[in-house]
């Protein structure tokens, strides 16, 4: 096992930042820790790295209990949210730092250090910038140097704290793919923290969704996306329409129509519920047919990259519905603002209403 976290709890005065977190990560796995701002992601990484101590719980790295080791003995590579490069050292010296501070008995020779640094900088495609100072690099370049610096000491595990959050969308996507490729080459057990669900879905072997210091769900990106365990996860993983309703005799009413309620809700008496429908799981047509007799008016049409976003006002719903359809369909149907359309919910998920988001 690469990383084993057992019952980690951390309180800041009266605020519980991490609440009994247990997590196993296999050797060589890349997992994404996904959660909203302030949910405790950074705190968890800092505890694994030893920069912060947990109130209780155990941290086992590659089979070794490191709970009480000081950070310098943990051998954890940390890539910080805001780079934290050494501003007075150039790129070469930054990457060489971890090797140069080794005790003399373990320190590689000068030429070995040079070879290793150059190899790492080539790996992160920064070999041209040896002599530059951090202030002379762009954000993406800095983050790649920070990654090389963390890898220089052959860390047992690699922790990346929202490494790309300060970069623009395009660069972020590029670096994300590049990081995935790099991980496939070097296979170091890694935790990648992010609050961007797209990033997590695209990058990770496995996703761990946390909220308010608790793990909500873990699984492969496919599992988590297709079968969200609860309303929070559903809501957090992408855009979604939320309808509030009541469960009555095992059914949920939705704008004059009824949907099967999930089992755990069926047996209870009347109860409030939340129904989720993703915008791209909504069908649109101009002709009434069986099962799609929900009628609405297009209020707004938005261009969303390859998709078209429709904002539809439907009878019986107290809020407009967001739908996303392929561009081709949009062109075929020749939709305009104010058109009457028929709406189908292809996939509906109902949860009990014990959540506020």
């Amino acid at each position: 096992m690469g990383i084993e976290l057992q019952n980690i709890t951390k309180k800041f005065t009266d605020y519980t930042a991490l609440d009994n977190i247990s997590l196993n990560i296999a050797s060589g796995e890349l997992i994404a820790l996904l959660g909203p701002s302030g949910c405790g992601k950074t705190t968890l990484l800092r505890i694994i790295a030893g920069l912060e101590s947990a109130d209780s719980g155990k941290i086992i790295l590659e089979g070794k209990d490191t709970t009480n080791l000081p950070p310098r003995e943990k051998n954890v590579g940390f890539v910080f949210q805001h780079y934290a490069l050494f501003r007075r050292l150039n790129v070469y010296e930054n990457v060489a730092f971890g090797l140069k501070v080794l005790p003399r008995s373990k320190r590689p020779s000068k030429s070995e250090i040079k070879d290793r640094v150059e190899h790492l900088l080539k790996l992160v495609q920064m070999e041209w910038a040896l002599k530059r100072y951090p202030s002379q690099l762009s954000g993406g370049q800095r983050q790649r140097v920070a990654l090389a610096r963390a890898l220089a000491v052959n860390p047992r595990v690699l922790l990346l704290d929202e490494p790309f959050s300060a970069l623009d969308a395009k660069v972020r996507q590029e670096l994300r793919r590049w990081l995935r490729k790099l991980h496939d080459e070097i296979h170091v057990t890694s935790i990648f923290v992010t609050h961007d669900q797209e990033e997590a879905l695209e990058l990770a072997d496995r996703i761990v969704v946390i909220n308010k210091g608790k793990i909500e769900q873990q699984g492969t990106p496919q599992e988590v996306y297709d079968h969200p365990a609860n309303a929070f996860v559903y809501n957090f993983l992408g855009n979604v329409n939320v309808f509030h309703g009541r469960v009555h005799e095992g059914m949920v009413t939705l704008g004059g129509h009824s949907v099967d309620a999930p089992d755990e809700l069926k047996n209870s008496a009347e109860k409030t519920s939340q129904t989720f429908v993703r915008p791209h799981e909504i069908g649109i047509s101009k002709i009434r047919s069986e099962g799609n007799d929900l009628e609405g008016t297009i209020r707004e049409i938005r261009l969303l990259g390859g998709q078209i976003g429709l904002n539809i006002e439907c009878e019986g719903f107290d809020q407009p519905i967001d739908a996303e359809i392929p561009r081709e369909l949009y062109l075929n149907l020749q939709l305009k603002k104010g058109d009457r359309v028929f709406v189908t919910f292809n996939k509906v998920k109902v949860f009990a209403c014990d959540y506020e988001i």
Partner: protein
Amino acid sequence: MSTPLLSQGTPPVVRKKISDPLPVRILLIGLTLLFFIGFVFLPLGLVFAQAFQKGWDFYLEAIREPYTIEAVKLTLTTVAIVVPLNAFFGVTAAWAITKFSFPGKAALKTLLDLPFAVSPVIAGLIFVLLLGSRTPFGSWLGEQGIKIIFSTPGIIIATLFVTFPFVARELIPLMEAQGRDEEEAALTLGAKGWQIFGKITLPNIRWGLLYGMILCSARAIGEFGAVSVVSGHIRGQTNTIPLHVEILYSEYNFTASFAVASLLVFLALTTVIVKAVMENRFQKNSSQH
């Protein structure tokens, strides 16, 4: 026909310079200059005029006089001891205040300013009351053959107290702005405390540190009040340059007094120039990063 706002044909907007009307400017600049001439240039000029009143030979003689040389030596010794010590204390205090959290931190930060707030005479008196030969501790020290008040150690201690805040004051905002990120990164890379300090922290604060040390030197050279109380004014032994100037003056030996005073002016000008150069470097350096 309506003209589009940003068409190329429209003439460029002439921006009116936003500033005060001319008379106000002249008045303010004039007042500043007047103040400068009256309170800085004129007095400094007078110091030199007085110092050279009886000619070069007398000037050199006054400076070469053994008591003067002893005073210069004592002042330089004091600076040489006080500045490194306060640099050390200042870095330690700034480090503790900015990198750790502990109870009483806010109080400590406030108390750092005490030496600035307290009148130097009182600062001197505190040490006389604490270490003078009439106090239990002072008399015990006396039995051990250690004399602090009315001798060099007293002067050094009083100067240490008065100049303590300079380095810490300079470093605290700097280190607060820099945060702990780099130190934490170094820690995860396996560096030990002294390696982090030597390779990361010190290079990051070196300009601020030097700047604080210069301010500290300037004050240590010029300090009069606190040193005057603890020195005892023993010529050739416990007289620093400012005290020596005072003594010569009170003996109506004006020319010699001003000659020695001109030394202080030279030292002060040197520190001001070094400070200006450093400030320049400091700003360039911090704006670069």
